[in-house]
């Protein structure tokens, strides 16, 4: 391969046009928080785009290195605050790898159920926000939030909190699910296919949505792989890579589900992959809710107090709704991790933002950015 093939091309303005430099953000409603893009425009055309990070930086990793292993668990909720349960799982998985801790079967099922519910509410709101940014002010977002609300109510009744769940522990989960909770979850899951049908009726064949999304923000599969893009964005470009299928972490090898793939790598494919992933999550949920066994939810050998892993290191990763969420831990035998690293999918998926935006209209930048689906709590950490 040629040197520099994976860099964004350097674009020149046409003729004698004067360049307009715009700072989009940090206080721009479409930036999902505080994020800035320094954009250079030739008329409507984007010819340079540099993302600027750090407005929400609080050095999560340093704080975690000064706290005990368990004390960082509630802090992981604040990384991607839409998906606190998958953050908990990724961290618990890394620590369990570090200490060879086993997890009881019932806890594994609970984790899968919560992770898939998290994925559905994340994808629904990601699509809602994307359509909102397209100018459909409110309606699709309200459809998505109506369903998300039901899922958050489930989280609240189980963990005590709607978004900051702090639910998983090294070797299991914090509280057991009741039979009443499981039947409530089943009712919510039974209502989901009708919601997705309704959502798709409203959106998938919509002429305006297709005109704004198809052929815009194309990401080539080779570049996606090279730039470490993961999650629905990668699969929207047609690369078959789902960590649930590759690593079989937890008990994902027991469930039958398909991995939806896009064809063109444009915004519409990323939208469609998210819709189809929601449908696959429902099939996983149906299987998990049917098969969930009884038994303990915490391994009896799990140690919560005086927890000191032996020296060594481990990297654990899961397929979070936004991509590969990994935790890399180095232990020196003490009560705190010597090194605690978060591999943030939101930040790394933004690597290709400039490549996708170059040459398109400035109005499409908002859409392309929305189709990446980021949360600034995780980007800036």
């Amino acid at each position, binding site marked *: *391969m040629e*040197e*520099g093939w*994976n*860099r964004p091309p350097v674009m020149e303005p046409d003729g004698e046009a004067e360049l307009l430099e715009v700072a989009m953000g940090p206080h721009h409603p479409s930036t999902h928080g505080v994020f800035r893009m320094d954009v250079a425009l030739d008329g409507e055309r984007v010819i340079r785009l540099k993302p600027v*990070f*750090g407005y929400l*930086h609080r*050095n999560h*990793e*340093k704080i975690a290195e000064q706290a005990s292993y368990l004390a960082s668990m509630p802090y992981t909720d604040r990384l991607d605050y839409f998906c606190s349960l998958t953050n908990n799982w990724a961290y618990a998985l890394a620590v369990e*790898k*570090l*200490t*060879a801790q086993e997890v009881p079967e019932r806890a594994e099922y609970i984790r899968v159920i919560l992770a898939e519910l998290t994925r559905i509410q994340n994808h629904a709101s990601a699509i809602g926000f994307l359509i909102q940014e397209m100018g459909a002010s409110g309606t699709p977002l309200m459809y998505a939030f109506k369903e998300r609300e039901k899922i958050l109510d489930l989280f609240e009744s189980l963990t005590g909190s709607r978004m900051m769940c702090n639910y998983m522990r090294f070797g299991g989960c914090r509280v057991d699910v009741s039979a009443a909770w499981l039947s409530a979850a089943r009712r919510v899951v039974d209502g989901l296919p009708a919601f997705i049908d309704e959502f798709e009726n409203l959106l998938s064949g919509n002429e305006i949505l297709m005109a704004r999304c198809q052929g815009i923000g194309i990401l080539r599969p080779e*570049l996606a*792989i*090279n*730039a*470490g*893009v993961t999650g629905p964005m990668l699969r929207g470009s047609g*690369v078959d*890579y789902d960590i649930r299928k*590759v690593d079989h972490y937890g008990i994902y090898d027991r469930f039958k589900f398909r991995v939806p793939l896009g064809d063109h790598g444009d915004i519409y494919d990323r939208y469609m992959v998210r819709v189809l992933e929601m449908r696959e999550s429902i099939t996983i949920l149906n299987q998990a809710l049917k098969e969930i066994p009884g038994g303990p939810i915490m391994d009896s050998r799990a140690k919560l107090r005086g927890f000191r*892993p*032996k*020296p*060594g*290191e*481990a*990297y654990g*990763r899961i397929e979070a709704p936004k991509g*590969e969420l*990994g935790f*890399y831990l*180095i*232990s020196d035998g003490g009560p705190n991790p010597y*090194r605690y*690293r978060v*591999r943030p999918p939101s*930040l*790394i998926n*933004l*690597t*290709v933002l400039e490549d996708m935006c170059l040459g398109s209209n400035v109005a499409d930048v908002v859409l392309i950015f929305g189709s990446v689906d980021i949360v600034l709590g995780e980007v*800036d*950490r």
Partner: protein
Amino acid sequence: MKTLEEIKSAIEAAVPGAGLEIVPNPSPSGQHSLRLAPAHATEVAKFLRDDAELAFDFLSNVTGVDWPDKEITEKVKVTRTVTKTVDGVEQTVEETVEEPRKRMQPGCLEVVYHLFSMAKKHGPIVLRMKTINRTDQVELPSLTPIYRSAEFQEREIFDLYGVVFTGHPDLRRLLMWEGFKDHPMRRDYVDPDDYEYEPTPHDAVLARAAASKAAQEATGQEGAGQ
């Protein structure tokens, strides 16, 4: 997937003099790593990416680690001449004693890369590189030309640890603001008394500021942080 030993010999066959070393990982995760000599790191990474069988096309995670200077106390045998009074006569005798000696083990900055393969669906392979010290020889080759995913992650390590990646196309601070001086993830980093430029009316902050101002005046040194 091949074992780490097989991968090591495959790299050594392709990149002569690669200077690889297997770093064992005592934890049950079993993720052992390969230490690279910085001089050959880009060639090794290119081989790992382009080799048809290994096909590590996906660089997932880049981590910086700080290993500060460590004081090691060890016992050293010392022979010395002493003057003793034996039976009322002064004599010069040689005796051997064990004496604790302190020596400084120089620290370094380390960068750890986790590679996976999307084509073959295997991994991870863990690569690590060390700088010579933590102060003035902190250059390491950048893997961004080979793996684009290192672009922001290496910028973050440059920002928070101070590793200078040679060959990086756009090496700027990522999370801290322009003009910030220190590297906050280093283990000897001292928080500034206050992140605001104007003094705040909080007693605890003011007391801390007064104490460190007095200490600075006593030693005549500039404070850490900004």
